[in-house]
């Protein structure tokens, strides 16, 4: 009787420890990836994005875009985007200016801004209103931000269906269920976000290819050159109360 009880108890204990170990592994893997990205001095990657747009009728339609990113910390960033409908645009930050360009409309704007990549991304996203999917992956505060956001995490499986074996992680938070497929090199290969509180529970999916932590960066990489015949147009910025932008590092105005 005692033996049976002990065996059951030990089994339960092992299961408990095992599941916690998997959870710890999942968090560690995700934070390892975050620290790897945050500490990278430079990198380039291609993101193939797909997302669900829930229509008024409730029908889910998938749209897509491809983004080529190149970052050289502390203060250089280049993003080239092409939507599935052909709309092509770019954003280049050279430490002093944020250049936006729409090749479809053949216009560009130059917004003076001094700071590092982190603050430029926050400024571009939060102040200028530029859409930057997975913006947090690009800032050096990613590990802390992920840790703050993360709810229960689980190790799903070792995914061996592709060329490389990938660790499949699932993390829950209040509004988003996150799944990440991480390679042995601690770089994400796929991220799926499910907006579970939004009508229709739409998903955002990003596949990462062409990771390069030593990309070839030439003198022209972060220099904006207006396309032929492009028109320079202004950018509208909202005025925010003076104290809202204080104490943000690198937040030059």
């Amino acid at each position, binding site marked *: 009787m005692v033996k049976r009880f002990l065996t059951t108890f030990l089994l339960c204990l092992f299961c408990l420890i095992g599941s916690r170990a998997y959870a710890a592994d999942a968090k560690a893997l995700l934070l390892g990836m975050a620290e790897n990205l945050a500490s990278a001095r430079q990198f380039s990657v291609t993101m193939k994005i797909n997302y669900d747009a829930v229509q008024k009728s409730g029908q889910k339609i998938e749209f897509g875009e491809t983004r080529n990113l190149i970052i050289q910390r502390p203060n250089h960033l280049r993003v080239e985007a092409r939507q599935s*409908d052909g709309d092509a645009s770019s954003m280049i930050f050279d430490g002093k200016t944020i250049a936006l360009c729409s090749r479809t409309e053949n216009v560009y704007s130059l917004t003076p801004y001094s700071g590092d990549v982190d603050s430029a991304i*926050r400024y571009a996203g939060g102040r200028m209103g*530029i*859409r930057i999917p997975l913006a947090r992956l690009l800032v050096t505060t990613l590990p802390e931000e992920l840790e703050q956001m993360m709810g229960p995490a689980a190790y799903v499986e070792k995914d061996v269906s592709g060329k490389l074996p990938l660790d499949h992680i699932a993390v829950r*938070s209040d509004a988003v269920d996150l799944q990440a497929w991480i390679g042995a090199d601690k770089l994400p290969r796929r991220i799926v976000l499910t907006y579970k509180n*939004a009508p229709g529970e739409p*998903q955002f999916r990003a596949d990462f290819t062409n990771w390069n932590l030593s990309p070839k960066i030439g003198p022209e990489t972060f220099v904006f050159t207006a396309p032929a015949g492009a*028109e320079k147009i202004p950018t*509208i910025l909202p005025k925010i109360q003076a104290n809202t932008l204080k104490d*943000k590092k690198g937040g030059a105005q």
Partner: protein
Amino acid sequence: MIINRKSSLLILITVLLTIIMGSGDLFARRNGGGRGGRSANFSRSGVARSGSLSGRSRRQTRPAARPQRQNRKTANQVQPNRKASNQIQPNRQKNQDRSAQTREQRGTRDQKDRQEWQDDRQEAIKDRQEDRQTALNERQEDRQDFIEDEAYGHYHYHHDWDDDFAAGVVVGAAVAGTAAAAAAPPPTYVTVLPCQTIAIVRNGTSYYKCGTTWYQRCYAGSQVTYMVTTAPPGN
């Protein structure tokens, strides 16, 4: 003779259908501009477009008391389209009913054709209005997405102005990079021009005129929009 008349009618209907479908396609392409072409019936916007890790809902962050809205005029320029779009449905129904009665009472081919053309015209008008509305909604939601989802940290919690800004009405805004930005009155912009017009280029800037109002292009977020401006030199 009867066969000839029937086949002529069939050919006529086929040609008409081809023209109607072709013009619809052209219209869709025109709206897509230089893009690969898009259907006006589907919106690209929504929370998943942001790719935000936080996925905050706009309702969670919407202020209880909204900021002042003295510039609603701009929104009103677009609003009538929505109204008009809603009004078309009963009109179409009425027209269809009338058409049915006419067919029964008179049974003449001419009147039926005329009615069909009227319906097509109504449909085209409705489509155009829906196109504009879809484009407007898309841009508004894009702005909302970034403000709520990517304006994180300190920025996020102080963005009480997001609703008005996202609605295409700038309350307390300035044109970036201009010396007189702080002192200048806030710019007013529309996400879609309220009329169909062609650009007039002066000193390298494209100007668009709708009624008595002049517009020039500007960035509001990731979107190229149209800002109310003074008349170009020589106009």
